[in-house]
């Protein structure tokens, strides 16, 4: 079941990229792309295996859409925050590496969480060991693991938990 799901998802992903690349569309190109994407998705290797962790229920899909907006908002806010620090005459930074914990279990969930942390300016994932993530933070507001977890991970984790546990 899991392999069927990951093959369907990799087919949709490959075909989606093809359709975006070939716009404006015509039906022959779209059909040729679908055939090739189907062949690649059916190949017996598991390059797309983390995709199998994605949940596809209606609640998970709604959360995926919500996560997109939550992430966009975090991206804009943290960009403005770092821009403010860069332009401030006294350069108000207090960098450090803090340890945060994640409740996510699946490789895809942890991948998305670590990448979301890195993509929002102000925080960079340096290392991940088991459930501990070490994050470089441009202005350490709370060096205690629980407080740092709530500040850095909290907003993303509750969505990712629904999407891919």
């Amino acid at each position, binding site marked *: 079941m899991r392999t069927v799901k990951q093959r369907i998802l990799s087919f949709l992903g490959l075909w989606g*990229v093809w359709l*975006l690349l070939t716009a404006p569309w015509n039906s022959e190109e779209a059909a040729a792309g679908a055939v090739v994407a189907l062949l690649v998705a059916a190949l017996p290797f598991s390059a797309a295996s983390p995709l199998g962790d994605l949940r596809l229920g209606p609640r998970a899909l709604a959360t995926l859409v919500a996560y997109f907006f939550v992430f966009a908002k975090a991206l804009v806010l943290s960009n403005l925050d770092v821009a403010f620090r*860069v332009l401030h005459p006294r350069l108000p930074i207090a960098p450090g590496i803090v340890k945060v914990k994640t409740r996510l279990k699946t490789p895809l969930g942890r991948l998305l969480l670590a990448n979301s942390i890195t993509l929002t300016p102000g925080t*960079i994932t*340096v290392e991940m060991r088991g459930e501990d993530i070490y994050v*470089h933070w441009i202005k*350490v507001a709370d060096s205690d693991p629980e407080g740092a977890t709530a500040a850095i991970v909290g907003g993303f984790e509750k969505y990712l938990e629904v999407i891919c546990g």
Partner: protein
Amino acid sequence: MNETIGAFVSLAGSLFFLLSAIGLLRMPDAFNRMQAGTKATTLGSILFLLGVGIMKPDWLGRMIILIVFIVLTNPVSSNALARAAHAHRKRIGARLEPDALAAADEGKEAGHAG
């Protein structure tokens, strides 16, 4: 109309590139320069590519693919750079207060020796 909106979105994106370049010059060490640098690749390139996509609607799909690839690959390289910088933190004179990762490493080595 589309041309104007797209031009302004691209302009906003390049503003973030400018801020990022200023950040690269002002920040004191490798980690903080990377913090300023991620600004360029995230909001900067996303807005810039979206602006081009709005100007030329035929290209919008291609621009979305570019954004997706940047969003997927940028954190991987940032993470590798951050790990490398942390391994050489004394040589590059990085000020890290606190440094939970170094503390964890020392704890592990001490436990191993004892």
